[in-house]
């Protein structure tokens, strides 16, 4: 029995818990499962990690070699942070009484974990699709307004999965196996798989599902959603496309464009969704650089990003839970009634903005420094630009408009205890993982190449000073612009993104074509009837005496069709060689 354990993907611990949740009538049993399952999965990873035996659970099935478990240094760090995030999500959602949410959140968590531990492309694809199918219910839990967004979400994700599968088949034919190792762009299927992964990673122009679906999901749903899909995609990139140069440029664009959308967006959860996209950009750049230090930075950034991003989403979720909206124009002055949430949000904001002593300070700089080492100064400069942008939308805008700014006059209760506890755990990790004396070293020790990571020392006088100067300058600009009255007020509006193209003109074209098709069909039926009436009355009568109440597919038409196909068949066998 115990020999079997290393061959079981830890994901199944969580997925099975999710299935049990469906059948559990008791709220507390479900919550216990939600908290216990990630812990058990974490222990399974710890127990079964063996540096000499990373590929496990292998079997051959229908001619394909499956490797269902691969726990090596790269996937392990993702695995641990996914388990931690699952635990935090479980605590955050403790108050919620909803079977669908509980079970889908668990299955989704498990699927994400399973994808990260997948050792071959087919297993990856299966878990990849499972994340899509399980998570869409979390979007739909956001209420009727989330329905269409959920459909679009599902469409994008299924497309992502089938692209991955199509690419995998091309690659598998070329390589002779489906092992998931470095793929690159020079092999058949490489581009298609990159496109499929890019959808989940929020590549520019493929990103809209993030900002579309996440803000519409339920309070707890968004926190869960924001954790797994995108980071799973980053893992797939790190595994398959490390050092692919084009990713540097894709990543830079990803860090830049969300900054401009975030500044004009009113819904703070949508601001966070854009900010998420921007953070993913940093990781994609790191993967594109591909050096050991850059990949360490990506892994570290994924860890802290999951923690502080869910902290921010949780704080906005708590606001939404209590107030009923997360729109900047409707909020303000909430520190009076939700001060603890405000502190948590500030810790999250400081972490994402990479203040010294806060989480991203030690990891984001690894990525930026690796770009600098390559003497890629333009990219370096643009990343600094984006860092200042992060300070604007996540560091200042989110906490300022929610908790400070002018008082909206709303007085509510502080967030529920379980939410505060979940936020507290995340905040503690934000601080501990950046602590200069033994804190960040723990994170570094988990990275794919700890020896390389340990060579990097984040807390040098110069690094602290430059980062502080950058942030102080941003704060100064904020204060100055505010004073001059140029800082824009928050206005309620729908901001158009590229998804405008398919949500308006695209939809209109689809509706128009549908209408035209209906008309055309009606016309065609009439035409066929008329023509048949004129030129082939006899034939028509022979085959369809029921005439007037014949169906939309009269047998006369079908008979003609048969004759046509026979003609085609004869033509083919006679003439086509």
């Amino acid at each position, binding site marked *: 029995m115990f020999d079997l354990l290393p061959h079981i993907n830890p994901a199944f611990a969580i997925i099975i818990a999710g299935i049990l949740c469906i059948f559990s009538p008791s709220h507390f049993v479900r919550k216990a499962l939600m908290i216990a399952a990630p812990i058990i999965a974490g222990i399974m990873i710890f127990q079964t990690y063996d540096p000499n035996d990373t590929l496990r659970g292998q079997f051959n099935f229908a001619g394909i070699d499956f490797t269902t478990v691969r726990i090596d240094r790269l996937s392990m760090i993702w695995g641990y942070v996914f388990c931690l995030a699952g635990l935090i999500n479980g605590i955050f959602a403790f108050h919620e009484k909803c079977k669908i949410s509980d079970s889908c959140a668990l299955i989704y968590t498990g699927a994400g974990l399973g994808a990260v531990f997948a050792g071959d492309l087919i297993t990856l694809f299966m878990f990849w699709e499972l994340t899509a199918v399980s998570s869409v219910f979390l979007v739909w839990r956001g209420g009727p307004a989330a329905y269409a967004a959920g459909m679009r979400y599902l469409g994008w994700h299924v497309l992502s999965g089938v692209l991955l599968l199509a690419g995998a088949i091309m690659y598998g034919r070329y390589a002779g196996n489906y092992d998931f190792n470095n793929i690159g762009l020079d092999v058949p299927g490489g581009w298609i798989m990159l496109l499929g992964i890019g959808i989940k990673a929020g590549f520019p122009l493929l990103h809209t599902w993030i900002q579309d679906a996440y803000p519409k999901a339920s309070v707890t749903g968004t926190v869960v959603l924001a954790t797994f899909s995108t980071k799973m995609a980053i893992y797939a990139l790190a595994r398959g496309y490390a050092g692919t140069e084009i990713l540097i440029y894709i990543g830079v664009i990803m860090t830049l464009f969300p900054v401009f959308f975030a500044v004009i967006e009113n819904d703070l959860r949508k601001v966070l969704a854009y900010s998420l996209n921007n953070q993913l950009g940093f990781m994609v750049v790191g993967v594109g650089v591909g050096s050991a230090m850059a990949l360490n930075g990506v892994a570290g950034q994924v860890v802290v990003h999951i923690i502080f991003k869910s902290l921010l989403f949780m704080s906005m979720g708590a606001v939404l839970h209590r107030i009923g909206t997360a729109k900047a124009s409707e909020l303000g002055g909430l520190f*009076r009634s939700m001060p603890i949430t405000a502190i948590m949000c500030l810790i999250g904001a400081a972490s994402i903005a990479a203040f010294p002593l806060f989480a991203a300070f030690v990891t984001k700089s690894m990525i930026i420094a690796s770009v600098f080492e390559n003497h890629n100064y333009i990219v370096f400069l643009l990343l600094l630009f984006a860092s200042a942008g992060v300070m604007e939308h996540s560091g200042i805008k989110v906490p300022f408009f929610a908790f*400070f700014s002018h008082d909206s006059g709303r007085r509510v209760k502080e967030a529920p205890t379980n939410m505060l506890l979940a936020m507290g755990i995340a905040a503690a990790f934000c601080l501990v993982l950046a602590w200069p004396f033994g804190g960040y070293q723990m994170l570094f020790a988990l990275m794919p190449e700890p020896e390389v990571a340990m060579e990097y020392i984040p807390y040098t006088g110069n690094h602290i000073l430059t980062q502080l100067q950058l942030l102080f300058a*941003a704060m100064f600009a904020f204060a100055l612009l505010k004073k001059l009255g140029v800082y824009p007020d928050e206005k309620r509006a729908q901001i158009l993104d590229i998804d405008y193209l398919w949500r308006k003109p695209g939809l209109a074209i689809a509706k128009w074509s549908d209408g035209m098709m209906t008309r055309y069909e009606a016309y065609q039926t009439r035409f066929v009837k008329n023509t048949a009436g004129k030129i082939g009355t006899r034939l028509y009568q022979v085959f369809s005496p029921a005439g007037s109440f014949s169906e939309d597919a009269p047998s006369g038409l079908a008979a003609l069709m048969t004759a046509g196909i026979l003609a085609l068949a004869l033509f083919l066998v006679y003439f086509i060689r």
Partner: protein
Amino acid sequence: MSDDVKLNVQSGSGENHPLAKLFMWTDTPGAKKNFIWISVAGLIITAALMVIYPNKHPAPWEVGPMKLIAYGVIGGFAYTFVVLSAKPLFNMLSRPENYYGEGDDHDV
């Protein structure tokens, strides 16, 4: 979810949370006025300390006085650029709230 939310929203000014004291200073006029000076002081101090901790691997643009204030200039410029671009962008991209006609969620 909307039901239990509406119960919790009390209009008018109820009691503040006891911990709100921590932040009350942010609401004073002094704080608003002096916030800018904190950042100016921060800028000056960091620039001054840069003399002691110079950048070991300077970028090509870190020459002359830029050695001390390069990051401040980049940060300040980037921030201002982003914020100033908000107005034209908003004019170009904003539409009425229920533009896509899918209903607006999470609204009081």
